[in-house]
């Protein structure tokens, strides 16, 4: 290291002679912080997304590295949000990658006092069987001699946090099953 480099590496010198007299930026950089990069800098790709919380619809940039989401930030391109996120939107990384998320199907048998793990495929088969049974049990061809062609045996609640495409399939499937008791947060 030459003298010049050595002097230049001294923060107080840089603070007094450089463009950062308050020592809050370039002057304060150490060799260590010089080498630091934001975690988004090494992302493999940036995926365009939308905040999942309220209905303002702020744009999000989702940073992916090694097939893992590493950061979620506001999208400056969005004319809705201009890059901003609120505390909830800024916590989207925890929402999507936090360890509070369950990753396994759980099953509680009738009268049981604890959960048991269950295979996803088995769970889907069991649910399909139960949908058919409850649908038949609650079937009403008529009510007061008027044709209704419906079932009150099954119901669903939810949709306000889902995608339009998901709501579309839910409404279509349940309607074909004859179920009418579909509701979501819009009326709660």
């Amino acid at each position, binding site marked *: 290291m030459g003298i010049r480099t050595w002097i230049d590496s001294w923060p107080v010198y840089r603070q007094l002679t450089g463009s950062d007299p308050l020592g809050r930026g370039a002057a304060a950089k150490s060799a260590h912080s010089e080498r630091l990069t934001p975690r988004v800098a090494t992302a493999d790709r940036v995926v365009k997304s939308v905040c999942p919380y309220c*209905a303002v619809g702020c*744009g999000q940039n989702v940073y992916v590295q090694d097939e893992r989401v590493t950061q979620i930030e506001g999208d400056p391109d969005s004319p809705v949000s201009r890059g901003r996120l609120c505390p909830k939107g800024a916590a989207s990384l925890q929402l999507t990658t936090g360890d509070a*998320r*369950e990753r396994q199907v759980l099953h*509680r048998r009738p009268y049981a006092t604890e959960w048991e793990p269950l295979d996803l495929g088995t*769970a889907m088969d069991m649910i399909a069987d139960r949908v*058919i049974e409850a649908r038949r049990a609650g079937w009403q061809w008529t009510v007061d001699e008027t044709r209704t062609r419906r079932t009150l045996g099954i119901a669903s609640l939810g949709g306000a946090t889902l995608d*339009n495409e998901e709501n579309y399939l839910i409404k279509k499937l349940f309607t074909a099953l004859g179920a009418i008791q579909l509701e979501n947060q819009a009326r709660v």
Partner: protein
Amino acid sequence: MAECHPVGFQWVMEAKARGAKLIHVDPRFTRTSALADVHVPLRAGTDIAFLGGIVHYVLEQDKYFREYVVAYTNAPLILREDFHDTEDLGGVFSGLDAANRTYDTGSWQYEGGAGAPARDETLTHPRCVLQVLKRHFARYTPELVEEVCGVPRGLFRQVCELVTENSGCDPTTAFAYAVGWTQHTVGVQYIRAAAVLQTLLGNIGRPGGGILALRGHASIQGSTDIPTLYNLLPGYIPMPDARRHPDLAAFVEAGTAPKGYWGNMRAYMVSLLKAYWGAAARADNDFCFDYLPRLTGSHSAYETALAQLDGVCKGYVLFGENPAVGNADAKVMRLGMANLDWLVVRDFSLIESATWWKDGPEIETGELRCADIRTEVFFLPAAAHTEKDGSFTNTQRLLQWHHQAVEPPGDARSDLWFTYHLGRLVRERLAGSTDEMDRPMLDLAWDYPTKGGLAEPDAEAVLAEINGHDAEGAPLSSYEQLKPDGSTTCGCWIYCGVYADGVNQAARRRPGREQDWVAAEWAWAWPANRRILYNRASADPRGRPWSTRKALVWWDPDKGEWSGYDVPDIKRDKAPDHRPPEDATGPAALSGTDPFIMQADGKAALYVPTGLADGPLPAHYEPQDSPFPNLLYHQQRNPVRQLLPSLPDNRYQPSGDEPGAEVFPYVATTYRLTEHHTAGGMSRWQPYLAELQPEFFCEVSPGLAAERGLEHTGWATIVSARAVIEARVLVTDRMTPLTVQGRRLHQVGLPYHWGPNGYSTGDAANELLHLSLDPNVHIQESKAFAVDIRPGRRPRGPASVALVRAYRRRAGIDEHTGTEP
């Protein structure tokens, strides 16, 4: 808005920086109040009196926008002689059937009928809508507003002046409400009151105007447009009613307006049936209309809970919703789930709706025992928005596509995956069935391409079905192309165009800074990528903008078409002086001066002859549970409010002058905080958010704290006729005591995000609520009710149930209390 939609609030701040005045009306002082020019605390549940007071001011001072009102509203129409207003009948309208809680709307109609109503362009006929309005709101004076709402008349006058000074040819005023306005037994009439005011002021269909619902979920608008709701099909087509709609012809006839875009009901409906049942839907079988299940009444989530208690509803699927703490009268919701055969919970974490059977409040009180609960529960982890493709519709009707970034972990799957594969498995099991019951499932168009190792359905293929296509399979670009003969399919007519040219228009992301202020190339707004609805009204009857500064769309006589920044809400070549032939129907019957194209007369409704259950005009009624009598009318409560059965856990309270009302002397209201989301399923498990708001609390004024011995950061017990809960106490000047009807009123603020699970915990405010609903849309009254509050923690175990019972006894409450018409 700064609390719950902070990023949207930046635009309010931009407007303020350009000179706009900001008024915040809210019982509590919030981050919005801190930035407002005027904060107006009022008694929760009195907004119709408040808005009605502004209407009164506008009419009395002749501040309405006369040219707009005459040209674009029903103000000149004359009512029938047998219509009687609340002023004539002690607070109810003519046609009330009190015993059955319904109105016969015959007398609410126009003289001469809807087809050829009598008119008075001078607006002086005593029975014309404008004069009826004047009489209806005559007693909504500043003095009355002060007595009912607790808003001093000087402050109220300031609001009236600001609103009217900032409305007219050039300035516009916007009203923004969070959906708390809808959560009242008169919720729809709250919105109507704002609509009457904004229409009188000419603030609809114009930039900077409108009544803007600030909705609280990423796609709650979308789940209303493409409804997971019992009474609607996609695009606001009603679900068929068993008695009124025996076949497609009857359904179409009942839903077809003589004029405007509901004139094309058959095209929308047939195209939807084609999307549902594909080749099986043919003209000779009514396009499978008979496959649709029919309604015989209301089937909201609250009636569904009752059906669960009755044992009729046996299976329940929850998609990202948490009724065990998020619905009103949460106990009834849990008891309903405890009587199911099976429950499927799809969510990120083990929310209260998944675990009530082992650790819910009824286990603690001993009312339920885990080993006695029969319900089989499946918890299926859900994929996050970063793990799936799809579109959200935001609160301004903007469909924005989010792209999948990574695969979901473990067993987590999208709801698209769950629903598609559930349907596939059910269809496999029913294959070969000859039971007529199963035909709709077997004939269902359910072939969606899947991709990847998880067999995830292609969301864009579903979007393409929603958009619709012609007989050759080419994507449609507009609902104008839909046909009534089965040659087009469309899963949601108002979304037609979102996949125009086979391109996902919702995924468009031209940066905002590269566009004008409308930013039409960012995503796609329904309908037709139109950003401001009814924007024909932004120009005068001759098609010229009301002002240069507020120009949005205008008639270009040289080109012979409408031009402007936004997509015009009128056919491009329909000249302002166009008058339709007498025999025209549907959209063709709209003239060049009919901006309100979804209305059967093309005009904004200051008065609503058809379509509302509880009156053609808003009238102030007290909330179901209120410490005050109704000063305006003899009628205390909305006479046709929807009451659910008065179950032991859904008792109503005495109100006003009724004996026992003094047991619940404080008004309470629920609301959200910046740092949490709805019932907490997406925020109480996030360490950052839990740290910012670690537990449930209530907000009370120093006056109330002194009156009841409540200590800051100590505990309070809050009681209603339904439940008792406890909360940490926040003593703050942000809760302003009001003077109402000569007495000091304290209000209790209750953020409602909590439950016992997650990192940030507490009791659920929704435990306190009753099931008394708006009769039009069946939404519960969660924003204004009456409670008692006392210091200390609530009792545990059976003592908690005993405390609520003791309160009921003291207030003399039985199954009849509060149920009068």
